[in-house]
């Protein structure tokens, strides 16, 4: 990493390292090598988009790459029918949710480092050929397009895949607020809650998201 304009606090630095490691480690349905390849593909697509060049489309024969691409550059264009199409191509809901968690967390840490003016965190060499198979057996379709544990909601979006769900909560707590802290409308973490919410709302608007 280059010398940052501002110092990255220890908690955030540790999160960046945990997140980078997880990108190259076997997950519930994907090997470490596949996860790392998809993470690198996501970074390339994000860089193309930032440069205002059309991101190179992934191979039509590679649904995992296509999902990665869509979640990276055009998440607001995702529809239920497209998710169903991926299932018909052999992508399980757990595959889909695992890739979603991976790309979403990678985008989060890369936005953070870009904002601070430092290089993206380097991904370590891939490790782990065998997926863990850890999938929530009590998840069911409940208002969303993939199974969730309980009704589909912001905190439950990744709950089909516990490792990604827990990693999302970890990032949410370090970068913003933990779920219990969400009720503190007077929180102050370098920014007052109102200021944090202004950044959150503007980010969501730019992403055409309405939460």
């Amino acid at each position, binding site marked *: 990493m280059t010398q940052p304009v501002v110092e990255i606090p220890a908690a955030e630095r540790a999160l960046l390292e945990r997140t980078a490691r997880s990108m190259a480690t076997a997950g519930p349905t994907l090997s470490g090598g596949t996860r790392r390849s998809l993470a690198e593909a996501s970074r390339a697509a994000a860089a193309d988009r930032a440069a205002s060049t059309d991101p190179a489309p992934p191979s039509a024969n590679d649904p995992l790459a296509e999902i990665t691409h869509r979640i990276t550059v055009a998440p*607001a264009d995702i529809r239920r029918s497209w998710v169903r199409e991926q299932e018909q191509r052999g992508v399980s809901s757990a595959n889909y949710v695992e890739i979603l968690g991976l790309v979403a967390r990678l985008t*989060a840490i890369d936005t953070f480092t870009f904002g601070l003016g430092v290089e993206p965190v380097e991904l370590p060499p891939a490790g782990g050929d065998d997926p863990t198979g850890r999938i929530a057996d009590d998840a069911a379709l409940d208002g969303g397009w993939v199974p969730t544990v309980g009704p589909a909601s912001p905190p439950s979006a990744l709950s089909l895949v516990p490792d990604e769900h827990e990693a999302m909560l970890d990032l949410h707590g370090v970068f*913003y607020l933990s779920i219990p802290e969400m009720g503190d409308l007077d929180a102050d973490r370098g920014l007052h809650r109102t200021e944090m919410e202004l*950044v959150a709302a503007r980010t969501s608007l730019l992403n055409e998201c309405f939460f």
Partner: protein
Amino acid sequence: MLRASSERTARAADLEAIVDPLRDSLLPNGAALLAFADAAVLRDGEEIGPARQALLDRAGPDAVVRAAAVAGNFEMMNRLLDAVGVAVGGRQVALADELGLRVPDHLRAR
């Protein structure tokens, strides 16, 4: 949550600034935060340096770290909600209407 935190803590905020960053949000450092969020989320290599420095000068390094982190967190959460099809509830639809935005039909709660 901006409206809720603003009302609960008696800090004035103009939510229209979310859709019109040239408008005064009434929040401390509001303009600098909006410019920083835009540059970070759009990965604008020309704008991010000046935006970061302006926020640093006005609010200090802790504010820059948190602004980058919050933008990152919502980059994550927005993708989760879009990709899982979490429905947007009535309160959020009403706020979107108030700000002149239209929630797409496929995301409206049924």
